[in-house]
């Protein structure tokens, strides 16, 4: 009996000890009986950061008319397009350089960029205050930093001095800040891109298997190179472009027009030449089901506008069209010209020239009565007429919309040409010529050194090479929104744009009156526009 009792005792007393030793941790490790962020392979910031991509896709200041107004329509090669009565004020504000302090487009452009800045700041603040240091969260921080730099780079190019908001807005008055100097803004951009380049992965595979087009280290370095290009810091441009090239992640597509092809269900998106695209998607039968519409107005705003043409030409709003100046200046033997400009009244050239085998209705008059209102259209976006995709989404005939088209924001050709320009400016003509040749050879259809069209341009002197590179950027990036800021950067804006009404102060747009009024005088207008 005594012995039995002892055994019994030991057993009883052992239960709690067993529990604490073995079962306890398991008993106490309880996760929600539904998915957590970990289960979804998401950091705590994922939601906030995805919101930044959504902002890029859906806010007008990034992907639709205001962005096009500021970047493309302001230059000499692109114009508003559409028809005479649509967006008439844009002609005044952007074509003829009578900038306004209070209108939809300039107000949206300012407000949307600060929205992105605040969203990114909040995400970074979340990470800092919660000590989020897991890999997924750090990647998210890198993404937020990229978007901060992206937005500020756009702002500093557009306005010069703007308020520096590098903190979360905890109360409304926090947003009232004076302007920061341009060097200070660039310093802030640099600091963010440094973080972005550090945390962003080399390839999108790090995010998971199906995140094509998400931000990478290459995107951060390319944007960073752009910012140095605008500061004429050639060494930094060379270093960053070389890093992107040496990463081995990118290459020029053999066929120039393939870069713009979307294909059914996005087959051509996020190509090897693409470093960063604003991604959009429109699912099957989206026209009758908004749940599968995750599109953007980027493609829609730049498609052929129907006006008096048959209903199948109801493809979009018809903004951002080539000018006569571009058409006349561009040598006809450059194959890129017919892949960039779509001519009214002509056959679109079929797949070889990025077309779909249709004949575009004729231009009639600026009002489009009886036909089209524009002579030329932006063919880089003409992919929106892709009949297969239109039938798939249901956006066909009367439902003209092309929400699935990605905005190619950063592409590898820019890295090559930036390197060429920076090498030339720093006295390395050979490198400049070699890189220029990469672009020209591809433009010719890879005909090689002995070709007669888009011929090789050997280096003779710096000025000769500089002119060649400027021309190359003009053709290669036509209608893509590079030219206005390039002209300003090169100091060529007065020469090229004064006939349109451009004066030196037009390099910066005035700050909208709304924020100035709200700030109670803390935020001051650019003195040139007071």
């Amino acid at each position, binding site marked *: 009996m005594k012995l039995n009792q002892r055994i019994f005792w030991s057993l009883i007393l052992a239960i709690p000890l067993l529990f604490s030793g073995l079962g306890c941790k398991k*008993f106490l490790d309880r996760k929600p009986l539904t998915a957590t*962020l970990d289960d979804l392979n998401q950091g705590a910031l994922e939601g906030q950061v995805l919101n930044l991509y959504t902002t890029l896709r859906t806010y007008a200041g990034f992907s639709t008319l205001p962005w096009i107004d500021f970047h493309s329509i302001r230059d000499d090669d692109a114009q508003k397009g559409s028809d005479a009565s649509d967006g008439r004020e844009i002609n005044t504000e952007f074509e003829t350089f009578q900038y306004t302090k209070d209108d939809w487009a300039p107000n949206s452009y300012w407000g949307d960029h600060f929205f992105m800045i605040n969203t990114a700041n909040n995400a970074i603040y979340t990470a800092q205050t919660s000590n989020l240091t897991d890999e997924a969260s750090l990647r998210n921080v890198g993404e937020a930093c990229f978007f901060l730099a992206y937005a500020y780079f756009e702002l500093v190019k557009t306005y010069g001095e703007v308020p520096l908001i590098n903190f979360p807005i905890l109360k409304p008055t926090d947003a009232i800040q004076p302007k920061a100097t341009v060097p200070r803004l660039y310093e802030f951009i640099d600091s963010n891109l440094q973080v972005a380049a550090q945390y962003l992965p080399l390839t999108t595979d790090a995010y998971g298997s199906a*995140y094509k087009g998400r931000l990478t280290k290459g995107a951060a370095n390319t944007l960073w190179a752009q910012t140095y290009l605008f500061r004429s810091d050639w060494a930094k441009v060379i270093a960053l472009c070389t890093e992107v090239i040496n990463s081995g992640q990118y290459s020029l597509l053999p066929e120039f027009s393939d870069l713009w092809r979307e294909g059914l269900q996005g087959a051509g998106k996020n190509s090897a030449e693409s470093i960063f695209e604003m991604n959009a*998607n429109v699912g099957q039968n989206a026209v009758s089901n908004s749940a599968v519409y995750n599109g953007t107005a980027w493609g829609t705003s730049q498609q052929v506008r129907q006006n008096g043409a048959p209903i199948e030409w109801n493809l979009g709003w018809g903004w951002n069209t080539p000018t006569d100046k571009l058409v006349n200046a561009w040598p006809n033997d450059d194959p890129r010209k017919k892949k960039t400009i779509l001519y009214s009244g002509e056959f679109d050239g079929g797949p070889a020239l990025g077309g779909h085998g249709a004949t575009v209705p004729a231009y009639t008059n600026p009002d489009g009565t009886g036909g089209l209102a524009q002579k030329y259209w932006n063919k880089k976006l003409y992919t929106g007429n892709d009949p297969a995709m239109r039938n798939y989404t249901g956006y066909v005939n009367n439902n003209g919309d092309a929400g699935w088209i990605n905005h190619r924001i950063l592409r590898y050709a820019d890295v090559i040409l930036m390197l060429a320009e920076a090498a030339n400016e720093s006295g390395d003509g050979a490198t400049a010529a070699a890189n220029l040749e990469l672009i020209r050879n591809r433009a010719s259809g890879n005909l090689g050194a002995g070709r007669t069209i888009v011929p090789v341009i050997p280096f003779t002197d710096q000025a000769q090479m500089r002119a060649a590179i400027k021309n190359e950027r003009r053709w290669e990036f036509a209608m893509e929104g590079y030219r206005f800021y390039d002209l300003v950067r090169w100091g060529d804006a007065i020469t090229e744009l004064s006939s349109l009404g451009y004066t030196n102060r037009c390099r910066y747009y005035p700050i909208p009156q709304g924020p100035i009024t709200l700030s109670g005088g803390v935020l001051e207008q650019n003195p040139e526009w007071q």
Partner: protein
Amino acid sequence: MKCFQTAGQKPSPSKALLIMKLTTLMMLFFTVNVAANGFGQDKISMRVKKTEISGVLRSIEQQTNYRFLYNYDLEDIHDKVSLNVKDAGISDVMNLLLGSTNLLYQLMNDNLIVIKEDPNVPVDVVIKGKVTGEGGTPLLGASVQIKGTNIGTSTNIDGNFSITAANANVTLVISSVGYDIQEIPLGGRTEVDISMKLATKVMDQVVVIGYGTASKRDLTGSIVKVSGKEVADKPNTNPVSSLQGKVAGLSVVNNGTPGAQPDIRIRGTVSIGQVHPLYVVDGIFNDNIDYLNPNDIESIEILKDPSSLAIFGVKGATGVIAITTKRAKAGQVTVNFNTSYGFKKLVDKIKMANAQEFKTLFDEERTNNGVTDPYDYSGLDANTDWIDAVTQTGNFSANNISVSGSSEKNRFQFGAGYTHDEGIVRHETLERITVSLADELKLNKFIRMGINFNASRQDNPYDATWVLDAARKVIPLVSSGTKNFYVKNPYGTDSLNMDIYSALDLGLQTAGVINPLVTLENEWDKTINREYRTVGSFYLDINFLKYFTFRPVLYADVSTVNKRVYTPLYYSYNPRTLVPSLASQTTRVTEDDRTWRKFQQDYVLTFKRNFGDHGVTATAGFTTYYFGNFNRYGRSSQANGPTALPIPDDERFWYITNGFQDPSTTSASSDQSENSTVSYLARVLYNYKNKYFLNGSFRDDASSRLPEANRHQQFWAVGAAWDISKEDFMQNQRIFDFLKLKGSVGVLGNQSASRLDGTVLDYPFYPRLNTGSNAVFGTNVYTAADPEYIPNPDLKWETVQAWELGVELNAFQNRLHFEANYYSKKTENLMTYVDRFALGLKNKLVNGGSLKNWGEEFSATWHQDFTRDLRLDVAGNITFMDNEMLSLAEDIPTGVLSRTFQNNGSAESRTQAGHPIGSFYGYVVEGIYQSYAEILASPVASSVGAYAPGDFKFKDINGPDGKGPDGRITTDDRTFIGNPTPDFMYGVSVNLSYKGLNLSIDGNGVYGNEVFRTWGSLESPFQRVNYSGDKINRWHGPGTSNWVPIVSQEHRFNYNGSTYNIEDGSYFRIRNIQLGYNFDKNLVSRWKIRDLRVFVNVQNAQTWKNNYGYTAEFGGDATAFGYDNAGGAIPMTTTFGLNVTF
């Protein structure tokens, strides 16, 4: 010597037993073999198995010369034995044979052996006696027990008892409530008269503390014990409701819905999250006790101070209500039956405008709004009191039977109850059946095992909590009756006559206002809401090494609620056109299944020993707790289309898949959560000479709800007490019979994690995922899971630093008992849900801010015997309480926790540093603008809204700079306008008994708090509601009123929360009056009845209050309470009861 065995020497039974066991084994192989071995010296060898002793003796006689002489009637001679001996002497054989009997043998000459009974063997003796109480009165029901056994009985009406003992040398233990326990060594007596002495030490009460019981005298804390009798005969389905006003420091805010949980707080509001106390029922932790039959409760203990609560660790900070259910007592079988029946009546009805008043006010309002044409009242000719229309006289009945009994080895108690409880709103009925069983079995001297089991089935009432509010909104011009129409059968193609309720006047009342009878009368019986709950425990009580007790216990509480709601088809008619139309057009079914599983295991080791003057009780334990909640919710609607049939109005089809449903409308969802804790605990109760006391306790809690790194939190308390009355210098005074000073200090925990509105965060470390924005990569669309808030890796539970100082005393021959305590509790690291949505920032869950509760409690009882028959007990308690928010989490952007209600958030509770928790916030009304001239002469208020004469004149208090009046009325002029926490609360009770008759009166009240009335002023100005009665005194021209504003919904200015809505929440209530009669025991014993009592009880007989509402008591949650939303009526309940014990 020749074989003369001395008489009376008994072989050692244990040795014999052992030998016999061995022999049994051998018996399987050998048969009887007895060998004779010489005269007089015969050696015996034999093997027998289970043979009567007499048979063995016969065998010996046959094979030896021994002869036996004995009386064949001796009982033990027929005992069966097994025996295996070889060459044994006769004495050895006899010892083996008779060792386990009461027989002796004597070896006489001539080999004659005489066998007879041992005269000294104890035989059962019947002990008789009489127990008398004070003044020699016979004591009925006194417990008489034989010490060290479970054998017991109780005295009858004459105080007589009779008990069977093994011998007359045992000690009797006699106890009776109110008397000191006596131990009487019988010393051979079989008849004793015992005179009991009135208990001198009330403090020797045994109270339940966590993981054990203790004498209240040994404790340093504040525990109040309430007898189960106090709640058993009160007409409340929830036993805690009956504690209102009974216990200092315990705040109970009742409401009138049957079965509904009262808002209970112990010593103030200690958190901005969870504030309700922990229930501990027979050791099991629980968050509600709705399965308990009040009649099964033996006692309720309220634990309030750090010294008592630290052992509960992370659940201790809000206080503990420990409930002990009934156990069988030693003694004979007792059957108790009790029943009560009564009715509930609505009292203190709120005043609303009648038909004439409504017309007067409405016509005036139209004029005020510039409408000139008179309103067309045609068809609206009723004068309905809508509150009368939706209320009823509710019936209450409770019936219980319990049987208890015990034997030496076993005690058991069985109870069954049935309660039928109707509310004052029509069709609001709760039905509950409960069964309880407790059994304890003594396995041997060391081990007892027991089970407790409670099961209940409850049919919850149709949710009619909205009805009172809906009723008072309807204008009195609408009829509450039905009209008969010949209409199409909504379930068929035929037509039939139906009685149909009126809809409201579409021109006047649409949004947010309905005729409650249309819904109530058509839907009340279309809901099945049934809860099954089983709660049980199994334990062992193991005593070993004399001073140790080990008690392992396993508990389980499993409950399910199945709620099915069917929406039928029904008509209402337009009161103007008298055209009926379908008010409900689609049949629907929703099903809601909720399951709770709670498991707990305790392993508690207790050591109890006195070392000379030092008394030590030490406890160490290990416990785990598991909580799981699993809910499923589904719904379906009838199919559409010309051929589709409605879901029939038949319970058979009230399921999601009923064969009539449209699959596309069928949906299901679930939510579920689990959490667990693992805890270690320790406690030492020490006393020196029963004069100086020290208590120390400690608990370590590890919770699954915290991040792993800081999962463990420790809580502790130490307490000290000094029984001054035991000191020598107190021995010569005659005033104090007992005087104890006590104090304790400790750190308690509060496992609170909720959003500000009180909804619980099941996994505080894992925020719920909301659906974020869509991002596209390639052709893949990602809906980012957006965490509701930022998870905080440093999260921990709130801690409460508490201390108290107190005194307990008895004086004037124990007629006075008095207790006083000062307490202070500072809650730190408040678990705060920081809402930053308005800033576009992520919400957070942080530990931040602190809160203080402090106060004084006094309670006293006076007992007076005027004559032998006339006795008086008076008791009273009062608690002064204060609450202040010391700081809030720094992360809160506005520096204030705000809770807003009604339209535009016009009713606001603010929790802000420097103010009591949940203080009301709004404008201060100085009066009514009587004229435009007065408006011009007053600060401009246009930033609040457009205003005119007849509107509130708000006081200019502050400007945007916070530096006092600025000459403008703006939102900066809002201020703290009320505190929902009373300055003090109190309770009194008087108990008068004369012979069998007794009368008790209980009252309770609070003083100094405010209530926020949201009705009759802050309804949405877009819905037309009936005017509250006070609107008759409205402003309708200069000088007509300086308090009630102009009647006009267009004057939105008056729809701001202000002191106009603030009312004095002080009240005093006669909570309970009970008149009872205990029949003369001599009389009822003729019918074999031991006890018979009849009583009449009136609950809430009268309330004195100062506000407009039905009642002055309104509960809520931690940061928003005290709102009068035109509901909460508490009925007056009159019951008649009968209690019989057989």
